[in-house]
């Protein structure tokens, strides 16, 4: 994308000053695209979340605004923009005003490095994963700011909890990322995806037992970093009224929510990239080669297909995160720390070293075969768990209610 743009600008033979302007324009265009994507995605996800949550509670969820309530997010957003912007007297006003934007920026900037498909990435950084983890850490500053400046004890407790939680969980998530990086040998997100294949046994999640473990650790820690249940302590509704959001109303509150739902995408996209094969299409061993080999419409189609695959995987993960949120209770704050330091960090180290060991094993004479067996066995295990799950679900449906009823839209 970027190369294309610069080729164009060179063909126009722009002056240096004009070139600067063109670059600025390029930045504006790209951020507008990403921003509109983020806004729409965040809104639609909020609708999806409410509908899914509704069905899990055997109710329906919003279905009055637009077809099936699809425009609910617009109503919510518009209403919040029209609300009075309350800034209480006693708050630290500059910080109070600034915090929502910081939270939003932290999540929003991460989108720059996310790979949406083969070659579809705003900035193909060679330290992509490092950049993403670093920039999302901005969120914690925003939340701490919000909690402190609100001049409300519940807010402060929420902010401090959030800081403790996010900073601690950076460690296991970093360790889990490292165990993948050891396998891929690079920090570039595109290259990490390129190191995997299209089929489940080619993904890094089933690469070896340690990456499987790392997957769970990463999933849990990134949930904690995104303040999602069971780790939504900073905004725990039943304990700290609304945590750091207690004093926020109207537009500023919406910005926090934008950030939260956009973060849902960042989380899921990262997991897809690192563990679930990213945009790799099943059956296509070398997408780069295929794309390089064709021209014109075929090339576009291949790239589009990769985007579709990536989106599909990410959306499944988004669903899983929503599903977990509406199932589990939340942890206590000390249990959260215990879980991090006593369970995740040791296992994270184990994962990193284990996958390093596995790289060595795979390079040994018999390694290729052993690796294949391990990968297939792990994939089989995953399939077995899925089968058991389906069985359990069917039993549940049969036990309490006789007819099997499936209608997504009500």
């Amino acid at each position, binding site marked *: 994308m970027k190369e294309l743009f610069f080729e164009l600008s060179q063909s126009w033979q722009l002056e240096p000053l004009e070139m600067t302007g063109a670059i600025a324009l390029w930045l504006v265009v790209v951020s507008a695209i990403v921003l509109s994507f983020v806004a729409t995605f965040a809104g639609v996800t909020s609708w999806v979340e409410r509908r*899914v949550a*509704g*069905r*899990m*509670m*055997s*109710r*329906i969820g919003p279905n009055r605004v637009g077809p099936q309530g699809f425009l609910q997010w617009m109503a919510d957003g518009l209403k919040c923009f029209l609300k009075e912007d309350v800034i209480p007297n006693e708050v630290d006003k500059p910080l109070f005003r600034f915090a929502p934007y910081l939270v939003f920026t932290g999540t929003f900037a991460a989108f720059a490095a996310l790979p949406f498909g083969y070659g579809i990435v705003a900035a193909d950084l060679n330290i992509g994963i490092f950049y993403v983890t670093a920039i999302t850490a901005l969120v914690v500053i925003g939340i701490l700011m919000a909690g402190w400046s609100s001049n409300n004890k519940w807010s402060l407790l929420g902010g401090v909890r959030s800081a403790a939680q996010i900073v601690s969980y950076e460690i296991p998530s970093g360790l889990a990322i490292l165990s993948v990086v050891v396998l891929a040998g690079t920090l570039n997100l595109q290259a990490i995806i390129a190191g995997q294949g299209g089929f489940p046994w080619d993904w890094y999640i089933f690469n070896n037992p340690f990456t499987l473990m790392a997957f769970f650790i990463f999933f849990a820690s990134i949930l904690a970093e995104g303040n999602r249940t069971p780790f939504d302590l900073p905004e725990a509704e039943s304990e700290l009224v609304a945590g750091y959001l207690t004093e926020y109303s109207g537009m500023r509150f919406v910005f926090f929510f934008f950030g939260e739902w956009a973060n849902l995408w960042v989380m899921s996209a990262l997991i897809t990239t690192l563990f679930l094969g990213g945009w790799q299409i099943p059956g296509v061993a070398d997408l780069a080669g295929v794309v390089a080999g064709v021209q014109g419409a075929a090339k576009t189609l291949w790239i589009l297909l990769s985007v579709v695959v990536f989106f599909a995987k990410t959306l499944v993960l988004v669903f899983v995160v929503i*599903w*977990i949120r*509406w*199932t*589990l209770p939340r942890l206590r704050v000390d*249990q959260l720390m*215990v879980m991090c330091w*006593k*369970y995740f960090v040791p296992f994270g180290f184990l994962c990193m070293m284990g996958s390093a060991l596995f790289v060595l094993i795979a390079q040994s004479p018999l390694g290729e075969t052993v690796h294949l067996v391990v990968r297939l066995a792990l994939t089989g295990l995953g399939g077995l*768990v899925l089968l058991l*799950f389906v069985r*359990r*679900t*069917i039993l*549940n*449906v049969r036990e*309490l*209610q006789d*007819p*099997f*009823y*499936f209608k997504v839209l*009500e």
Partner: protein
Amino acid sequence: MSSTVFDYFTNIRNAFTSIFHGLAVTFSYLFRKPTTIQYPDRIDTPVQQMLPPLFRGILEVDVGLCIGCNLCEKTCPLGCLRTAVVRDPETNQRYITRFDVDISKCMVCGLCSENCPTGAVRHSTEFEASTANMVNLVIRYVKPGERIPVHKPVKGEESPGLPQNEPIARAHKEWDEPPPVDPDQVRGRVRWKNDGAPEEEQSS
């Protein structure tokens, strides 16, 4: 949390199995019918007709059946019913001149309808009465100035009574309808006990 190494690993196992079961339960609800009754518009029969006839909704009065015994007013612990009966000195016929029910006070306990000898006072299954004006919550079954002769039950004959589950005249009006000017009201609420003795003779 845990004291031994065994506990440590048991915790991990328990966490996985219990979360597995929990997720299976919530997931299975995606394949079940929601229990929501889409109340105002997307249902086949109105909710009022789905309710059991016993349901204690808003009080309704068939003034034609009222024998003017004033028992309902006396039974009500709150005084949310207000009746007045006058006697025509010439014909000796008694007339009901006032039968008001303040449903903003009513606690739907069913004591009045139980004590009513003819079934003139009863609970309907109607419940839609939300309104913007407090005045609309006072239902006047006898219009001011109207005189309705009391009912004289015939022995051995059952009182006709209102048909079951028939919605009463809605107490609800449009929210912004201007309140009727009535000196009887203080801040939009009908004053009850302290408004001095009414001119009509009380039958008691």
